[in-house]
């Protein structure tokens, strides 16, 4: 019976310890993180008030507190991902430099390349139809006189300057 009580107490204590420990499960306290370590994470975050100013260079008091919070969590042994996730959980996805790739946000990443590809395709089709027309016209017209490449360049340049001069 006694041994059972000891077992229960030990299990309870272990459970308590597990609940109280940081999410990464790292037990020991880390040495004080450097400014550079804090900034490496702060650079990826934006506070909701100071629009478009990354956290590592934001001079406001609120942002200083966020940086202190990062320092504290780094000291507790949290990883970079955990700290970023903590801020997202607390303040929403807007704290990240880019929206997470999920749901409606996919549109943010898909639309520009799709628009570009659509533009490129339209351009390609237009070229093809233009070229077909031009070939047809060329077949009907007489072939141009053969010229030496360099003379052609001089003639073109002179023609342009004559037009302007």
């Amino acid at each position: 019976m006694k041994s059972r009580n000891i077992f229960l107490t030990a299990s309870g204590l272990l459970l308590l310890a597990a609940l109280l420990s940081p999410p990464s499960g790292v037990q020991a306290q880390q040495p004080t993180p450097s400014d550079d370590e804090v900034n490496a994470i702060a650079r990826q975050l934006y506070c909701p008030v100071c629009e478009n100013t990354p956290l590592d260079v934001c001079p406001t008091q609120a942002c200083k507190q966020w940086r202190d919070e990062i320092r504290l969590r780094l000291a507790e042994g949290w990883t970079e991902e955990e700290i970023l996730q903590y801020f997202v959980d607390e303040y929403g996805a807007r704290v990240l430099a880019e929206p997470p790739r999920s749901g409606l946000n996919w549109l943010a990443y898909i639309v520009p390349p799709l628009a570009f590809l659509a533009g490129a395709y339209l351009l390609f089709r237009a070229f093809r139809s233009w070229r077909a027309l031009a070939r047809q016209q060329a077949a009907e017209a007489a072939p141009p006189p053969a010229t030496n490449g360099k003379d052609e360049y001089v003639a073109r340049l002179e023609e342009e300057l004559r037009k302007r001069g």
Partner: protein
Amino acid sequence: MIPDFGLGILAMAFIVSLFAVGAAIYGETAHKPRWVESARRAMLLTFPLVTLAALLLIYLLVSGRYDVEYVYSVTNNAMPSYLKVTALWGGQPGSLLFWAWLLAAFASAVTLRKWERDREFLPWVVVVASVTLAFFLALIIFFENPFARLWQTVDGVAAYTFQPANSLLVTPADGNGLNPLLRHPGMIIHPPMLYLGFVSFVIPFAFAFAALITGRSDDRWIRITRRWTLWAWLFLSLGLALGARWAYDVLGWGGYWGWDPVEIAALMPWLTGTAFLHSVIIQEKRGLLKQWNMMLIILTYDLVIFGTFLTRSGVLSSVHAFAQSAIGPMFFAFIGLTLVSSVALLIWRWPSLKAEVEMKSMLSREALFLLNNLLFIGILVVCFWGVIFPLISELATGQKVTFGPPFYERATAPLFGALMALMAIAPLSAWGHSTVRTLGRAIWKPAVIALAAPLATLAFGITNPVALTGFYLVGLVVTVTIYEFWRGARARQSAHQEGFLTALWTLAGRNRRRYGGYIIHIAMALMAIGILGIEVFQTETQKSLGVGESIELAGYTVHYDSLAQFAHTDGRWVTRAEVSIFKDGVFLQTLAPRYDVYPDGQPMTIAGVRSTLADDLYVLLVNWESVSASQAPFKVYHNPLVNWLWIGSAIFILGTIIAAWPEKERTATAGK
């Protein structure tokens, strides 16, 4: 008295511009040229009227009339007079008045040109300019009146245009003063340059609109506005460059461009404007792309208004702020109206704007120009989407999202790289027809010479593929462009028996737009060096130092010597550190990073910068952490090659001035 007078003058200008619209439309449709002439004169009259209103506001600003809310909010007794004058564009109502004044000036200048050869454009140019002016004047008069005064009512002190019942005029002894960040010389010139660029683009749009409505399908409108467009583009470029320099100098984050929506708002019309500048050349040379050019100028005009809207309506902070702001919906409606009406006109005229010839080859100069347009529009789509998507997300899900530099850099870097490649290839291709063979023959030598750039980079032990590709493209653009100058001058030299330099001078002088354009290409390549330097090689570190301690970065040692805190005569509280800079143990110089706190609590961080062609060492005294003489936090950035960005910007402006400079000989010939 003066505030009421100022508002009255603005109201008159508003009525006169509405009259100009009505008279121009009536005169044209009823075939009564006298009415059109009357509209032209009305347009001319708006300039002295808006000038008078602006001068009255400047007078109020300089004389410290703090009963006027705008004067109270942007000036104070401690500010020198020149800053009080520049406070005209230091806040919303003043900025809008400044916008309207520039537009009235440009519109009046246009109405004074010789209209004999294109009289049919006149009424419609007046209509577009006057509608735009009337819109801005309406915003000022009805929503953002710079002449509103402060009144004490039972509910407290507030700004009203007219005296409310049972109220007393409030005259504070001192004003709030201009935001210290806006007192930097770069920031004093930056907004007027940007506005000059924005407003100048209204004129080419007005001519395009006139060409559409009158059905003139030739390139006359483009020829008339060619120089306007170049000057507009010059000012916009200058505005962007000054803004970048200002950010680098006073924002204290070691960079020059943060992909902030306000920056993007100014970049977007520049992108379409640049695409337009290239594609009009195709229309002039080959009679192609008439419909596309119309689309580009319509887009540029609406992006100008959209840019002003983004920065002025509060929409960026939240869609709800937009809904609450009085001018946001007005802007939105105006953009919609102008866009729909111009696009409808374009569709109506679509068949008459068909190309005169067809494009023959995918490697011809015109085809490559079109590809350049695709890339510029691609960058525009990324920018537009990045600015708009957070609003869509907020409306759809109630969640705001942030688009920081990583999004834009990843999406636009390949497009900018492709643009560099085109800058190298296109000058070597021929109008009309080019084949892989002719192009290959022209490019192989420059392509080999340009290899020197990445090889030199490799010699420094740098193997980053982005840097190597970037530097190769830079080398290629510079080589091809110099080769083009050389080839042209040699051709002329042999044809005219001139000396090489004379030939070069005549060549560039006779075709300023082309050779000015080539100088701009070289400038872009130099700017790319600076951008690559920061994007790829920037390093930074931050550390709190006691006196006598040091930080090491990129071979430099920053040694903390001393700290002084004192009050400046203008009321600023200055905290100034002195640090010694060493490289490989050799003393280079002393820098004095500092931060100033203005009486109203606004801080400004001024970095200590050691700047050379190779790199910048940018030292900040970090004012957001606690600073004391014994312990001060420093942030140090090593920015390799960044100076090339500024050198490139200066050459860019020079190239644009050369391209936009009037060609005297041509005018003389045309006059004969």
